């Protein structure tokens, strides 16, 4: 039940209370409550848990983490910590 997965917001029902919308999870679409991410825009990614978007995904941060992996790969030697 703790599963929370990212999906893309494909529609927002602006007039609904609580704020609802449709989120696409790799082809599967679901009705999701967007009330906790009120500033979300169409095509943005959100993390959804038990039918609620609980956070927006930050695209730039996602890229940063991935870039860090690449740096780890190429710069392993520099990561070594000097013996204390």
């Amino acid at each position, binding site marked *: *039940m703790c599963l929370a997965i990212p999906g893309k917001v494909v529609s927002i029902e602006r007039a609904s209370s609580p704020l609802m919308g449709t989120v696409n999870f*790799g082809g599967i679409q679901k009705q999701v409550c967007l009330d906790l991410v009120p500033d979300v825009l169409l095509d943005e990614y959100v993390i959804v848990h038990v039918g609620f978007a*609980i956070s927006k995904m930050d695209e730039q941060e996602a890229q940063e983490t991935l870039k860090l992996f690449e740096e*780890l790969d190429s710069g*392993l030697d520099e990561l070594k*910590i000097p013996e204390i």
Partner: protein
Amino acid sequence: MKFIDEYRNAEAAQAVASAIASITTRPWTIMEICGGQTHTIVKYGIESLLPKEISLVHGPGCPVCVTPIGMIDKAIAVASMADVIFTSFGDMLRVPGSEKDLLTVKAEGGTVRIVYSPLDAVTIAQKNPDKQVVFFAVGFETTAPANAMAVFQAKRLGIKNFSILCSHVLVPPAIEAILSSPQNLVQGFLAAGHVCTVMGYEEYIPLTDTYRVPIVVTGFEPVDILQGIYMTIKQLEEGRYEVENQYARAVRREGNIPAKQLLAEIFETTDRTWRGIGEIPSSGYKLREPYTEYDAENKYRVSSERLWHHGVSRHIEHQESNLCIAGLVLQGLKKPHECSAFRTECTPERPLGAPMVSSEGACAAYYQYQPFFQE
């Protein structure tokens, strides 16, 4: 799928694993808090990618596992009442109570329905005005805003035939309970990323300061977890103990403000008993005064010592299986395969303890993905 595939990339995982090996100079024990992370760790065999000095132990972050048996018995008592539609997340149905589980109540003629979202339970209440709808509100901080919203909506819409059986638990007091135990083995924590999407991570700073342990907010994909481990080991090797955020694509320092406001409106903290661990002070939520009419415990006055069956109440003792060592597993003191009942008396089909029920429970994860744990 975007934001998932990249973090399951085998080369990236290998790169981080090598980086971990290159900085590890001595043994360290790290605990992941969240059952979702336990699932990923066991499913992808993350421990096998790590140097042998690093030991991963699995924490109490599975709501299915820590909901106390007394609360399961209360759920069973309420669900057995004739005019009640009892609604719950699916994996609570097979959690063993003292005498039976919710699935058995259903088989015996009780109305027990699985819902995907707590708002669905409110809709069921709207559609069935002649019935009482009760939702089993379990979960950590990740789930609490959704359950809070269900209560908020019920009140806003004037729905009177809805209530929740509230058994919410909170992560930081559990970390503190583990750290303050004299038997504690854990030297660093991976904090549950999704809990922190809601709460942020400032509340972990007093813990790192007091107990001098690193806490790294970590995501759920294999590469996230490896990177969380890398950041934790780096702190340990450098003698630092800070809160760091590996899961920055979803977690901001302050968390989700609208969600926190909703929580503050609906809930206040209370002492809670954790299955297998015992009572932890201020470790859960209960409904605040203006919302207590939505509290199923108030509404039905079910004492956990009395079980209802076909309108008759009788006394029960809360009985745990005496083979089950779930409490030790949930505190990181034992691994699932060290339990004598693992895979013999206790299987996902016939669970003796709650960690064998949900796939996020450590015992079920070991059972499903690690067939070589045969002991």
